[in-house]
C-alpha cells in the first residue's frame, strides 16, 4: 500500500490543522510538566505499573471523561453544521468522519471506560475483597483499552478517520467504496480495545463468583455487584462475535478476502448481522451497570432498602437472556421476511417488561422513604422520566411494521439518545458524585453539581426532543445538510441551542472536578452519605489492601446491618494478620504499547512491520509465562498503623448534603 507521504498528515483543513497544533502543544505541555515536577518515577511506580483495582479504575474514569469531552466536541461540530440549512461549515467527508468518531468514541471509549472504571473501583470493596481475581490481567485490560483508544484518536490527524458510521456497514466500509486507511483504524483500534474488554468480563465473573467475603451469599450482594456480574456475562457472550466481525473486516480490507465485498461472492448483509449480534448486547452491557448504580443511589438517598431485591435480580437475568435474541430489530427493513420480523418484534417488546419491573421497583423504593435531593439523587430522579420517554419510543420502534417508517430517521436517533444519555450518562454522573469521596477523600461541590445537573438535563431535553418530531417529518440521520424548503430549520436550530446548553453543563462538571480537587473540604466522614453497602465500611480513600480484617456479612445491605447492630465496626489488634498483595508489573503497559505499534503498522498495511511487532507481543506472553513473582506480604505493624490513622480520628464530618 504505497501511501504518499504528504497524505500521512492530513492537511488543508483549518479545523484539523488547529487540532494538530492543539494535540502537539498538550503533549509537549504534559511531558514538560512531569519532567519539571520530577514525577516520572512516581508516575511509573504509582500509576503506570499499578495492579491496584482502585488506581486502574481511576485511570479508566479519567480517560473516559477525556473521551467524553472529545466525543462531545464532535457532537457540537455536528450540531453547528446542521444548525442552519445548506450550512457550509463542514463538507460531507468531514461531517461523515465526525459522526463516525462521535458514535464510536461516545459508546466504546467514553461510556464503557467510565462504567468499567466505576466497576473496578467499587466491586472489590462491595464484596469485601482485597483485589480482583487476576490483578495483572486487570492492568492489561486497561492498557489494551487505552492503546486502542489512542490509536483510534490519532486517526483524526494521521491518515484520516473512518467515515462509514459507527456501524461501518459493508460494502460502504469495504475497500470497494471507501479507499484509504480510515476504516482500517476502525477495524484494528476497536479490536485491541475489544480484547481488553473481554478480559475485564472474565476477570469480574471470577472475582464476583469466588472472592465474596464470608457470609455474602449471591442474594446478599449489593445490586451494583449483581448488575456488573450480569454485564460481565454478556461481555463474555458477545465480545467474541465482535472480535470475529472485526477480524473478517480487517481481512476484507487488507488481505483482499471476500466476506462482505460485492465481488467474489461476498455477502454484505452478513456484516450487519454479525455487527448487531454484538451491537445489541453491547448496549445492555452499557446500561445494566448503570441500573445498578441507580439502585445504590436511590436506596441510599431514600434511606430505605431496595424494594423487591429478588425481582430486581430476576429482571436483569431476564434482560441478559433476552438481549442475545433481539438483534434483528436493527434491520427489520432489510427484507428478511415477515416471519423473521414478527418473531424479533415480539422478543424485542418482551425486553420492555423486565425494564418496566425495575422502574416500578425504583419508584416503590422511594415510596415511604425520606428522599434527599443531593446531586447524585437528582441524576437518579431525572433518569426516571427521561428514560421512560426513551423506553416508550423503544417499544414503538420494536413494532416491525412501524419501524419501516422510523428506521434511520431522527426519531430513531432521538430514541437511542433518550435511552443512552439518561440510562448511562446520568448514571455515570450519579456514580461519580456518589463515589467521589470514596475514591478521592473529598466530595464534589454540591452547588456546582446542581448547576451541572440543571444545564445538562435541560440542554439534553432541548437537544433531543425536537428530533422526535423531525424524524416523524421525514428527516433522516447522518445527513450533513438539509434543504431550506424541507421546513426542518427551526427545530434543528432549537436542537443546536440545546446542545450548547448541554455543553455548558459538561463544562460545569469539569470545573467542579478542578474546584473540588483544589478547595473541597478534606476532613469528611468515611461514610458521608450514611450509605448501606460494604464499600463504605473502610477508609475514604481506602488503603491499598482495602480491609484490614475481611468483614463478615449477615444480610443484604451489610454495612447498614453492621451500623444498626454495631457489629464488626471495631478492629482489635490481635485480629490483624499478614496480608498477601500482588506486586506491580511493567508488563501490562509494555503490552499496551506493543499492541498499539503493531496496530498502527497494520492500519497502514505495512504487513512485515506489523509481523515483527506481533513477535513483540509473543515475547510479552512468554515473559508473563515465566513470571513466578507472586506478590509481597504486608506486615502486621504497617497495617496497625494505617488502620489507627483513619479509624479513631473519625473526622466527624456529617453528611452535609446542601
Amino acid at each position: 500500500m504505497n501511501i504518499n507521504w504528504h497524505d500521512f498528515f492530513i492537511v488543508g483543513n483549518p479545523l484539523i490543522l488547529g487540532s494538530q497544533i492543539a494535540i502537539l502543544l498538550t503533549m509537549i505541555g504534559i511531558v514538560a510538566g512531569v519532567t519539571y515536577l520530577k514525577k516520572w518515577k512516581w508516575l511509573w511506580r504509582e500509576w503506570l505499573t499499578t495492579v491496584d483495582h482502585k488506581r486502574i479504575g481511576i485511570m479508566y474514569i479519567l480517560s473516559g471523561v477525556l473521551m467524553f469531552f472529545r466525543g462531545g466536541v464532535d457532537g457540537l461540530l455536528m450540531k453547528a453544521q446542521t444548525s442552519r440549512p445548506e450550512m457550509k461549515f463542514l463538507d460531507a467527508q468531514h461531517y461523515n468522519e465526525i459522526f463516525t468518531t462521535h458514535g464510536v468514541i461516545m459508546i466504546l471509549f467514553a461510556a464503557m471506560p467510565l462504567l468499567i472504571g466505576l466497576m473496578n473501583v467499587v466491586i472489590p470493596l462491595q464484596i469485601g475483597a482485597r483485589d480482583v481475581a487476576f490483578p495483572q490481567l486487570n492492568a492489561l485490560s486497561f492498557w489494551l483499552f487505552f492503546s486502542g483508544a489512542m490509536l483510534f484518536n490519532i486517526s483524526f490527524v494521521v491518515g484520516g478517520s473512518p467515515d462509514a458510521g459507527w456501524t461501518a456497514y459493508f460494502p460502504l466500509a469495504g475497500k470497494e467504496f471507501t479507499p484509504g486507511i480510515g476504516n482500517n483504524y476502525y477495524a484494528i483500534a476497536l479490536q485491541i480495545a475489544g480484547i481488553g474488554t473481554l478480559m475485564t468480563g472474565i476477570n469480574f465473573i471470577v472475582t464476583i463468583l469466588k472472592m465474596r467475603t464470608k457470609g455474602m451469599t449471591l442474594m446478599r450482594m449489593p445490586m451494583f455487584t449483581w448488575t456488573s456480574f450480569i454485564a460481565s456475562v454478556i461481555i463474555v457472550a458477545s465480545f467474541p462475535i465482535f472480535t470475529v466481525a472485526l477480524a473478517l473486516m480487517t481481512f476484507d480490507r487488507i488481505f483482499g478476502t471476500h466476506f462482505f465485498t460485492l465481488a467474489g461472492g461476498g455477502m454484505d448483509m452478513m456484516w450487519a448481522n454479525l455487527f448487531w449480534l454484538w451491537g445489541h448486547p453491547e448496549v445492555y452491557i452499557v446500561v445494566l451497570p448503570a441500573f445498578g448504580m441507580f439502585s445504590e443511589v436511590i436506596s441510599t438517598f431514600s434511606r430505605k432498602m431496595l424494594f423487591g431485591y429478588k425481582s430486581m435480580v430476576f429482571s436483569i437475568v431476564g434482560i441478559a437472556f433476552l438481549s442475545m435474541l433481539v438483534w434483528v430489530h436493527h434491520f427489520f427493513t432489510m427484507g428478511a421476511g415477515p416471519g423473521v420480523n414478527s418473531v424479533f418484534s415480539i422478543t424485542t417488546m418482551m425486553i420492555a417488561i423486565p425494564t418496566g419491573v425495575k422502574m416500578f421497583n425504583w419508584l416503590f423504593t422511594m415510596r415511604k422513604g425520606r428522599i434527599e435531593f443531593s446531586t447524585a439523587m437528582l441524576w437518579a430522579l431525572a433518569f426516571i422520566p427521561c428514560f421512560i420517554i426513551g423506553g416508550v419510543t423503544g417499544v414503538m420502534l420494536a413494532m416491525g411494521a412501524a419501524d419501516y417508517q422510523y428506521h434511520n430517521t431522527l426519531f430513531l436517533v432521538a430514541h437511542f439518545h433518550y435511552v443512552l444519555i439518561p440510562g448511562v450518562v446520568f448514571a455515570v454522573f450519579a456514580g461519580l458524585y456518589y463515589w467521589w469521596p470514596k475514591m478521592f477523600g473529598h466530595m464534589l461541590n454540591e452547588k456546582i453539581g446542581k448547576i451541572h445537573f440543571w444545564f445538562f438535563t435541560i440542554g439534553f431535553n432541548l437537544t433531543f426532543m425536537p428530533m422526535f418530531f423531525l424524524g416523524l417529518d421525514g428527516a433522516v440521520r447522518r445527513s450533513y445538510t438539509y434543504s431550506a424548503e424541507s421546513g426542518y430549520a427551526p427545530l434543528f436550530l432549537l436542537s443546536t441551542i440545546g446542545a450548547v446548553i448541554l455543553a455548558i453543563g459538561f463544562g460545569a462538571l469539569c470545573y467542579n472536578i478542578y474546584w473540588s480537587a483544589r478547595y473541597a473540604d478534606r476532613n469528611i466522614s468515611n461514610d458521608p452519605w450514611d450509605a448501606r453497602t460494604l464499600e463504605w465500611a473502610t477508609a475514604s480513600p481506602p488503603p491499598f489492601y482495602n480491609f484490614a480484617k475481611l468483614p463478615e456479612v449477615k444480610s443484604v445491605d451489610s454495612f447498614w446491618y453492621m451500623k444498626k447492630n454495631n457489629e464488626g465496626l471495631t478492629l482489635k489488634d490481635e485480629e490483624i494478620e499478614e496480608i498477601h498483595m500482588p506486586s506491580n508489573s511493567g508488563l501490562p503497559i509494555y503490552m499496551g504499547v506493543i499492541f498499539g505499534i503493531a496496530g498502527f503498522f497494520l492500519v497502514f498495511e505495512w504487513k512485515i512491520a506489523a509481523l515483527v511487532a506481533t513477535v513483540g507481543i509473543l515475547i510479552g506472553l512468554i515473559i508473563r509465562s515465566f513470571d513466578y513473582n507472586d506478590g509481597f506480604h504486608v506486615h502486621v505493624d504497617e497495617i496497625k498503623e494505617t488502620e489507627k490513622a483513619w479509624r479513631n480520628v473519625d473526622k466527624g464530618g456529617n453528611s452535609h448534603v446542601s
Partner: protein
Amino acid sequence: MAKNTKGFPLTHVLGFIMSLVLTFAALGVALKTNLPFKTILWIIGSLAVIQAALQLYMFMHMNEGEDGKSQIINVAYGFFIAFVTVAGSIWVMSFGM
C-alpha cells in the same frame, strides 16, 4: 493420591475408543449411505455433539471441583449462544443465500 501403582487409565482408553467409533460412524453415514442430505446432516451433527460431550466429561473433567456447576453452566451458555448465532444467522440470511 500418592498411589503410584501401575493403575490402568480405564476411562481414558474407553473415551478414546468411543471417540474413534463415533468419528468412523459419522464418516460411514456421510459417505457410504445415500440418505437424503438433511438426515445425514442431522445424524453426523448429533454424533459430533455426543463426541463433544464425551470429550468434555471424560477428558476435561468439566464437572469436577467446587466450581463444577458454574463451569457446566458456562459451557452450556457458550454452546447456546453459538447455536443461536449459527441458526439465527442462517435463518435471517436464508432469503439471500
